[in-house]
Structures are given as structure tokens and as C-alpha cells.
């Protein structure tokens, strides 16, 4: 797949269809992969990578990239295309300046899950028939592929590309996913249990802003949390409430816009399951206002900028679940 992508990217650069390519390159470690922009065949040959660790969603980078001169080729996995559409809808990406090549999605791997097995000094990871052959400083290790899959990929919602100019490989379908299982489990807990769960999780937050910075729905020119005029611009731990405020408001701001790409939880250095907040909103919206998938299209009205005259009252919160 990587070779096919590089070949196609080189062709499009060569014939002048695009001026740049956004994909991924390797960092210090094999599993340490970041999005990168390539401008020449040489760079592509040398650095471009597409493997089991290229989980990062590159859609958000297109906000800045399409503000520049020229056209860019973007390789988008199915989940990334939802974010892409949402950004088109919000006028954040100039569609004319992107050439989208749809590529197959995950499941991608989570290095933390490999490390959790006590495997350290990882040099490379190869998938052979759903068994990972892991080359380490201390010799080769193996583990089942399924046990190292990223959480966000384990509850994948769709293998279908909702936006592309061309596809490499086959397009998939929207999946029946189990993505709301954990939200449901929490809903069925008592309020005290839920509170204990979230206190345990949110108390780990170090306000590094990684979740916000990676989130394709958080593309504000200037975040309210950075804007002194907003009145809530405090950074980290001015008082113990700050993180609650940050995460609730952030989830609220992306409610109805979040495509559930799962990047927030993937990048959280403290492993807080932040996506559960977003999924709670998505689940509520689906249940209360009808099924809605942000980014499935570029025209539909977002649930929070819409209403019906017979919407439920907030007392619905009292009527369902346990307290």
C-alpha cells in the first residue's frame, strides 16, 4: 500500500496536479509517526510512511495547508474523510485546493498496548497473519495483533470514504459498531460511581492541550481558553475546577460537530478516555434528536443549530437512567 501511495503521489506531483502531499513520516522510533508535508519525489521516497502506526488524522492540517498557495494531495483514511467533510461544511477547508486520495483505514496499532505487555526497546513491529513480530533491543517478541489495536479502531464506525477524488483500494461500508457500549455502561452506573469514574480520569489531566490541538473540530483561530476576553482563559490549575470546565466546554463546543475520530483519546498522554465525553453527546443527540453523523455530508444542519418544536425538555435527563 505504501508503495502504491508513493507512486501515485509522485505522479500527481510530476504532472502538476498538486504542489504538495500530506501524509506521514517516521519519527525517532518506528512507532512514533507524525503527519508531514512532502514537496518532492525525493522526500516521498525517503520519508513517506504508511503502516500500522499511521493513525493520525491529517484533515485538520488542511485548514492551514489550503490557506496557502497551490494544491495539496491528502491521503485520507475513511474516518479522516468525515472530519474532512465537517471542515468543508464549516468553511475551514478550501475544497478546490485539495486532491483527496482515499486509502484503506485501520485497524491501527497502539504502542502503549505493546508496552503494557512488558515489551520495551521496540525497534520495529511487523504484522504477520495477525500476529505481531516485534523486534526489540532485547530480541524478538510476539503478541496477537488484536490485543494491540487502538481503542478508536476497535470501535470503528465506518470503512466508507465519504469524500474523495480517487481511491486506492476498495471502499468499505458503514459498520455496526459497539462504540457506545462504554457510554452505556457508565449511564447504567449510579451517579456516585460515575462521579468516581470521572474524578479518577479527569484528575489525571495535565492541561497539555494535546486533545484540543489534535482535534479536527477544534480549529478556532483563537480558542476561548486562550482568549483573555472570554473570561475563562485560565491555563492549567488556577483552581481545581479548571480541567472540568475545559473538558466539558470543549466537548460542548464540538457537540454535533465531532465526527468521533477518537484522536483526543489517542493523543492524551494521561490516557483519559476523552472520547467518551464526545460519544455521550453523540449518543444523546442520536437518541433525542434523531441519528446524526457529523461529517457524513457537507450540507445537513448540525443538531445544535437546529430544533423542532416538540423537542424533549431537559427533564428527560431525570426520566432516564439511574441517579
Amino acid at each position: 500500500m505504501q508503495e502504491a501511495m508513493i507512486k501515485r503521489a509522485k505522479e500527481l506531483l510530476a504532472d502538476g496536479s498538486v504542489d504538495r502531499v500530506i501524509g506521514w513520516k517516521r519519527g525517532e522510533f518506528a512507532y512514533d509517526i507524525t503527519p508531514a508535508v512532502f514537496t518532492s519525489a525525493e522526500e516521498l521516497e525517503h520519508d513517506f510512511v504508511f503502516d500500522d502506526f499511521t493513525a493520525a488524522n491529517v484533515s485538520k492540517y488542511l485548514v492551514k495547508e489550503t490557506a496557502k498557495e497551490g494544491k495539496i494531495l491528502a491521503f485520507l483514511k475513511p474516518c479522516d474523510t468525515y472530519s474532512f467533510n465537517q471542515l468543508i461544511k464549516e468553511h475551514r477547508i478550501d475544497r478546490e485546493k485539495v486532491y483527496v486520495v482515499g486509502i484503506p483505514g485501520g485497524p491501527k496499532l497502539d504502542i502503549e498496548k505493546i508496552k503494557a505487555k512488558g515489551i520495551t526497546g521496540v525497534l520495529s513491529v511487523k504484522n504477520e497473519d495477525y500476529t505481531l513480530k516485534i523486534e526489540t533491543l532485547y530480541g524478538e517478541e510476539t503478541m496477537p495483533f488484536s490485543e494491540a489495536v487502538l481503542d478508536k479502531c476497535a470501535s470503528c464506525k465506518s470503512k466508507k470514504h465519504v469524500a474523495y477524488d480517487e481511491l486506492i483500494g476498495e471502499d468499505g461500508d458503514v459498520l455496526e459498531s459497539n462504540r457506545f457500549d462504554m457510554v452505556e455502561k457508565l449511564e447504567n452506573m449510579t451517579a456516585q460511581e460515575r462521579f468516581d469514574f470521572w474524578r479518577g480520569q479527569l484528575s489525571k489531566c495535565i492541561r497539555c492541550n494535546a486533545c484540543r490541538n489534535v482535534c479536527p473540530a477544534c480549529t478556532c483561530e483563537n480558542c476561548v481558553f486562550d482568549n483573555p476576553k472570554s473570561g475563562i482563559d485560565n491555563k492549567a490549575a488556577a483552581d481545581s475546577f479548571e480541567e472540568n470546565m475545559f473538558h466539558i466546554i470543549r466537548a460542548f463546543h464540538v457537540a454535533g460537530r465531532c465526527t468521533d475520530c477518537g484522536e483526543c483519546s489517542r493523543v492524551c498522554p494521561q490516557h483519559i478516555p476523552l472520547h467518551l465525553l464526545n460519544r455521550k453527546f453523540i449518543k444523546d443527540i442520536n437518541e433525542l434528536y434523531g441519528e446524526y453523523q457529523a461529517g457524513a455530508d457537507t450540507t445537513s444542519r448540525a443538531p445544535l443549530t437546529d430544533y423542532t418544536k416538540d423537542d424533549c425538555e431537559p427533564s428527560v435527563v431525570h426520566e432516564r437512567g439511574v441517579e
Partner: protein
Amino acid sequence: MQRIGVFVCHCGTNIAATVDVKAVAEALGHEPGVVISQDYQYMCSESGQELVKSAIREQKLTGVVICSCSPRMHENTFRKAAASAGLNPYLVEIANIREQCSWIHKDIATATDKAIILGKAAVAKVHLNTPLSSMESPVVKRALVIGGGIAGIQTALDIAEAGFDVDIVEKQPTIGGKMAQIDKTFPTLDCAACILTPKMVEASQNEHITIHSFSEVADVKGFVGNFTVKIKKKARYVDETKCTGCGLCTEKCPMKKVPNEFNMGLDNRSAVYIPFAQAVPKVATIDPNYCMMLRSGKCGVCSKVCSAGAIDYKQQDTFIEQKYGAIVVATGFNPINLDKYDEFAYNQCPDVVTSLELERLMNAAGPNGGTLLRPSDKSHPHTIVFVQCVGSRCDDEKGKPYCSKICCMYTAKHAMLIREKYPDTEVYVFYIDVRTPGKNFDEFYRRAVEQYNVHYIKGMVGKVTPKSDGKIDVQASDLLANEQLHIDADMVVLAAAIEPDKTARPLATMLTTQMDTNDFFTEAHPKLRPVESATAGIFLSGACQGPKDIPETVAQGSAAAAKAIGLLCKNSITCNPCVAHSDELMCNGCSSCEKVCPYGAITYIDKEFRMPDRTTKVRRVASVNPAVCQGCGACTVACPSGAMDLSGFSNSQIMAEVDAICK
């Protein structure tokens, strides 16, 4: 550096009785930025305002906080005062320590604490206030009068007289209202129809007045000077423009067993009907509940006899939409339903009637052609008992707590008329009090007692029992003689309490006007603005505001008209400058705000920005039209970046208030 002045009003004892105003002034004097903090007896009075004005000038104030009544009451007063002293009016904030503090609390200590906190919140907010300037908005030079009784007619005539177009919406097929049903009027005993019907005709012939009869207000949008009202013209199955009012259809209609509402159901009318001879518009209406053609498709007689071809069985409800600068509510009253008053046997005995029914029974155009006969056997009644305060001044669930005001006088009128016309009839009136304030009212009542020998008995009727011989046993107490009485009556007349029309409450909701617990419209000020509602551009006329007799109703109708004319005379009114604005540096152009704006006030423009690296970048940003924006603030919450904010109610202002309250 802010220089804020705080002014705490006593409002006589309205505030000072429950809030320690000196302590409030003292405490707020220590708030940051406050340079002067004073209390005064009546801040809204001339001298109170002068106090504020001189402080603004002498202390060079940059902000003013008035701790007083609701901002809905006097915010404008103090804004004007500030402006006249050279301070931008929007640098004034009101802390509501009367309606939302002194009037609801009893304990001085806690009420004072609360007043201080409310004052602190206002000080915190005014720190962040910015000078704002108003725009002008045009006034639509047309008025709407809702209700076509004497109140609505008077208002419409007066507005038309001033040269403005005015529409009357009346839910019945004819205008005229309750006054059209009344026989004679107190205290002059002139005939109601003789003085009302010329006004009805005048209204119909006035070139400035359009009457929408058999119509209802379906929807109201907009604001003072610029309301958009949707009027539902109910299908009357008769083409109003073709019908000549000849009445042939009503004669020929085979369905003649319909209770006649104009005569309070005391006789019948046909399915196609004209409510009464002087109806305006004099146009027939088909009652779809009784018309055989509409119910079963079999008949069509009226259509055959109508030479004008006005009958239209296929007519549908239609809606018209019209813009108005002012709206006058004149929805009137109804007697209460007496179904729950078993003790007066109203539902068991046809000879127990309400006063309004008696009006019809005595009216020359009524069911008996003006001869007073018992409904049961059409015999002449020799003993008539009047019961006062049926449902008025009542503290149980069945009745109303208020005095219906008109009953004492119309009962004196009825008693007098009966004694005049039928001297052989004995008339008893049982009353709690006889209330006769009003020009020539007490003289009138005394005439009934002294000249006409009406038996006024202070006491309540306990039970009314129809007897087998057709007589009615009235059991009552005479409080002055301290004895129980039994009167063998031929008729009993109940002075039923009056209540606002049932359509008033949904209408109040549409108009966003206030009502009291009895569903009477609340005036903007009970003393000083008695014909205005608290919602700008909505005026009150007649009994919809409280029980009234005819002269009072007419006076109020004219007063409401004067207020409406005052508004319509203006070419434009100053708009609210508290509107949304977008910080272009922060705006992402995501379009969330545009989607929630009910006025379409937000558009997008491409704007060029200079970047830190000296390049330029073109970005899509939101732009608010301040003349269209009404300042709801929906956009400010839809905006994730916080670029959209609302003048006068900014994010930081509201959060400053939150902080001040919570700390």
C-alpha cells in the same frame, strides 16, 4: 480607572422597609471603583435624578449603578438622566432590589444581604460596560385593534380620526361586543343599541378602518413599530364581498333549532344567521356545526335563495399577514360559568337567570320582544330576587377574588326598570355591600331604593330551590334584621362575576405581555401607565385590563388610542443598541451563528488579515447587521470561539455578575 457612582433608592418604604438602604450604600461604597455611594428617598423623582446627574458631573463618573425597582420600570428614566448629564446612557446598570428583593422578602438582615449582593453584581457588570449608541428603526404607520367591542371600536375610531390606518380583528361575526347585548345603560337609562350602533356604522364606514370580523390573531412577530401579525379569517361560508345582508337565507334556512348566542341561548336562530339586525358587517355566517349542507351535503337552500350568489360551502379558513406599528388589546370580558353554583339552581331552573340573560329578556330585540316573561312558562313574574356577588369577592376556588365592579349598578338599573314598567312586581336585592362610586351612581341607587321601593336586603342568599308549583324558594339571611328569610320568587337573577375572555391568555403569550393571576392584562404601571402593557407598542383598552363600566371603557379606549397615535406619529423609534457583534480576529467563519439567527442578521464577508510574518491572508468572517439584529444572543452561544458577543450583555459582563453573586 473607573469612577462608579452607586445610588440606592428607598422607594418610600417599598424598599426601605425591608432593606437597610444605608447599609447597602455603605457596603457598595467599598466596592472597587466606587467613588460615591448614596441613598435617597425617591431616586426616580426629579430631585433624585438631579442627585445622580450632579454626581455624574461633579465626580466625573464613568459608570452608574442604581439600586431600585426593576429595570423594566425605570431603566430608561435613569439612562435618560445619565445622558442629560453627559454620560453615555448604557453606562447605567440597575440592581433590582424592589421586585426581586424587598417585595419578596420579609427578614431585613437577609434581604439587606441579598440587596448588597445584587448591587455588587451590578457594580461588577458596570465595570465592563461600554458606551453604546442607538440606531433608528422605522415605524409602520398602521395599528391593530384586537377585539371589536365598544373598547376596540372607540380605540379604532380615535386612531382613524388621527389619520392612521387601523384594523379591527373581531372573533364574532359582528363587532359590537357585550354592549350590543345590553338593553339600557346606567345611570342615564339610555338605550345601549341607540348609542353603540351608530359607532359601529361609523367604524365600518371610516376609510381608515378595516374590520376583520369572524377572525382571530394567529401569530405575532416583531417588536414595537414593526409587528408582523398573522390573522386567521375563519371560513364563514359566505362571501363577505357579495352578501348584501338581506337575510333571505336566514329566513329560508330549514335548520332553525340553533341556540341563539346573541340572546344568551334564550331562543333559537337558523344555521345561517346574522347575529342581530344592526350587525356590522351585516353579512350572514353559516354555522358549520348545524348546517345540513356542510354536515351531510344535503340541503343547499340558502345557496338557492341567495340572489347575490354569496354562499360558498367550500370556503376555507384564510390567513392574511399585515405589518403594524402598534397593537391595542381590547379582548373584553365574559360572565363566569355558573355550573358549579348548585346552591342557586342555575342549571336546574330556567327561571334562574344571569343578569346578562335578563338584559336580553328585557330587550325589545330580545326573545320576548321586550316583555319580561319567565323563560319557563312565559308568564309575568311578580316577585323577582336579585343575588349580588355571585362569584365575585369570593375566596373559594369557584369564584373570583376581585369585585366585578359593574354588578351593583346594573342591578339597580334592572330593579328600577322592572319597577317602572311593572309596578305590580316586587323586587328584592340581596347584597354584601352596595358600591356606587362614580358620577351620579349613588343618586341612581338611592332612586331605586327611595323612589322605586326596591327592597335592598344586606345578606347572602343561601339556597335557591325550585318548587313544584313553578315558584322558587329563596332562602336568605337579612344581616341587619338578623333573621332568616324565605321568599317565594317567580324569578331569580344572579349577578355573575365577570372574567377576561378565554382568548386573552393565549394572546398574551403571543404578544409576550404580562397578565395577573386572574388573566387580566397587567398595565406597565398601575398608576402612571394604565393603558400601556409592559411590552413596548402593545396597549390595553377596556375590560381586558380589569372590570370596567362603559364610560370607563370608552375613556380607556380613547387613552389607548392616544398612546398608539403617539407612537404612530413618529417616523422612527430608537432601536436597541444591545446587539451582537463579531470579533473578526477571532471569527472562524464556521457559519454556526448564521444558522441560529432568527432575523437573518448575519452575513459573511471575506476579510484580509495581516499576519505576524507580514503576509496577508483572506478569511471568511461573520458580519452582523445591527439594524436587523434584535439582540437575543443565540449566536453568541453557537459560536465556539467566542468571537460573537452581545453588547450590553457580553460574556465578560455576565460572568462578572456570576462571580459577584457566587463569591
